[in-house]
C-alpha cells in the first residue's frame, strides 16, 4: 500500500486545484473571444449559404467542409506557423505576436464553421409563412426578422450553440501545444516542476475541471432554452 502512494497520491488532486483554477481565466478569455468572432463570421457564412448567389453558397460549403475535415491541432499549427509566414510576404512581422492571438484566430475559424450550420438549420426550421405573415401585417422586413423569425430560431439554435461552445472549450485545451499558459499549460508546468511525477493526479484534476464546466454549460443552456421557449407555448395554444 505504501508502495502505491509513491505513485498515486490523491492529495495532489486537491492541492493542484487552487493553482490551476486561476488559469481558467485565460481559457475563458480565449474561448469567449473565439465565440464572439466565430459567431459573427458564422452568421456571414450562414447568410452566404442561404442567399441566392450560387458562388457564395459553393464558397461557404467549401469552407465548412474543409474545416470539418481538419483536426484542431493541425489548424492550430497551420495558423501558428502559416499566418506569420504569410504576413512576411506583405512586409508585416508577426512572429512575436502573443500566442493567444493565434489561438483565437484558429478557434474563430473553427467555431464559425460550426455556427454556420447551427444558424442555417435554425433559420430553415422556421416556416417561410411566418415571415410573410409578419410582413403582411405591416412589419418591415427587419422588424419581421427581429421580432418573429429571430426569437423562434434562437430556441432551435440554443442547444446546438451550447454543444458548439462545449466543443470549443474542449478543442481549446490544445492551445498549450503552441505555448499558451491556460489551465492545461499550467498543469503541464506543475508536472514539470514535480519532475514528471504525480502527473496522473494533475490530469485527473484537469479532467474534473473540464467535466464540471461542460455539465454547467449544458445545464445553463437547458435553462435558457426553457426561458426562451416560453413564447412558443403561447403561440401554440392560441
Amino acid at each position, binding site marked *: 500500500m505504501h*508502495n*502505491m502512494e509513491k*505513485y*498515486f497520491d490523491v492529495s495532489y488532486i486537491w492541492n493542484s486545484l487552487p493553482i490551476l483554477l486561476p488559469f481558467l481565466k485565460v481559457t475563458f478569455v480565449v474561448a469567449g473571444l473565439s465565440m464572439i468572432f466565430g459567431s459573427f463570421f458564422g452568421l456571414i457564412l450562414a447568410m452566404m449559404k442561404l442567399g441566392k448567389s450560387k458562388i457564395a453558397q459553393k464558397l461557404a460549403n467549401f469552407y465548412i*467542409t*474543409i474545416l*470539418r*475535415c*481538419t*483536426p*484542431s*491541432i*493541425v*489548424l492550430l*499549427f*497551420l495558423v501558428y*506557423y*502559416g499566418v*506569420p*509566414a504569410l504576413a*512576411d*510576404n506583405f512586409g508585416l512581422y508577426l512572429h512575436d505576436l502573443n500566442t493567444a492571438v493565434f489561438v483565437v484566430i484558429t478557434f474563430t475559424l473553427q467555431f464559425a464553421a460550426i455556427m454556420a450550420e447551427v444558424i442555417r438549420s435554425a433559420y430553415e426550421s422556421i416556416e417561410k409563412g411566418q415571415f410573410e405573415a409578419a410582413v403582411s401585417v405591416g412589419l418591415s422586413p427587419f422588424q419581421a426578422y427581429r421580432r418573429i423569425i429571430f426569437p423562434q430560431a434562437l430556441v432551435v439554435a440554443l442547444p446546438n450553440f451550447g454543444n458548439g461552445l*462545449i466543443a470549443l472549450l*474542449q*478543442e481549446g*485545451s*490544445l492551445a498549450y501545444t503552441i505555448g499558451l499558459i491556460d489551465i*492545461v499549460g499550467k498543469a503541464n508546468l506543475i508536472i514539470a516542476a514535480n519532475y514528471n511525477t504525480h*502527473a*496522473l493526479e494533475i*490530469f*485527473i484534476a*484537469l*479532467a474534473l475541471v*473540464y*467535466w*464540471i*464546466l*461542460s*455539465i454547467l454549460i449544458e445545464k445553463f443552456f437547458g435553462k435558457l432554452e426553457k426561458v426562451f421557449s416560453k413564447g412558443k407555448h403561447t403561440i401554440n395554444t392560441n
Partner: protein
Amino acid sequence: MSEGLNYTFLIDTFFIALSGVPITLLVTVVALLIALPLGFLLALTRINQVPVLNWFSRIYVSFVRGTPIIIQIFIVYASVPLILSLFFERYNININVYDINPIWYAFIVFSFSTTAILIEVFRSALSTVNKGQLEAAQSVGLSNLQAYLRIVIPQALVVALPNICTATVNLIKATSLGYAMSLQEITLKAKVAANVGYNYVEAYIDIFLVYIILCSLVEYGFKLYEKRLRRYKYVSA
C-alpha cells in the same frame, strides 16, 4: 521563412504524411470494431434501464463528452503503465512497460472515447424506431434476437448512419493527437520530417491536405452506403 515555400520539401513530405495513413486507419478501424458492438450493447442498457449498467453508461458518456480527448489521452498514458508495472512487479512478469508499442494505448483511448459517443448515437437512433415494430416482430414469432437483427437494427442504422459518419470523421481527426503517445501517425511523421529544416508551414500544409482527402473519402463512402441502406426506410411505411 520569407523566401516562400520550399516546394521540394512540400512534395516529399506529402508522401511522408501519407505513409502515416495506415496507422491512422488501423487505430480508427480497431476503435470502431470495439466501439460499435460495445456502444450498441450499452445503448440497450440505457433504453431498457438495466439497473447498474444504466447508471454506469450515463456517467461514462457524461465524462467522455465533458472532457477533452487530449486529457483522456494524458490520463490513460499516465495510468495504464502505472497499473501494468505494478501488475508485472507483483506477478514477476519480465516485461518493461516502456517497451509496449504506443499503438496499444491508442487502441484503448480511442475505443474508450468512441464507445461513449456511439452509445448516444445508438440510443437516439433506437428510440426513433417505433416500439410497435418490435412487438409486431415478436407477435409473428420472431425471437428477440431475430427481431432486433432483422427489424429494429436495420431501421435504426439508417437513422444512425450520418452520426456514425460524423463520429468516424471525428475519430480520424482525434488520432492526430496520437503524438502525445508518440504514435507514428500522419501528424507526427510529417512533424518529425519538418524538425530538420524548420519547414513547419510546408509540413502542416501536407498534414492538412492528407486529412482533407482522408475525411472526404470517408464521408463519400458513408454517403454511398447510406443510399444503399435507404431502402429499409420505406419498409416500415
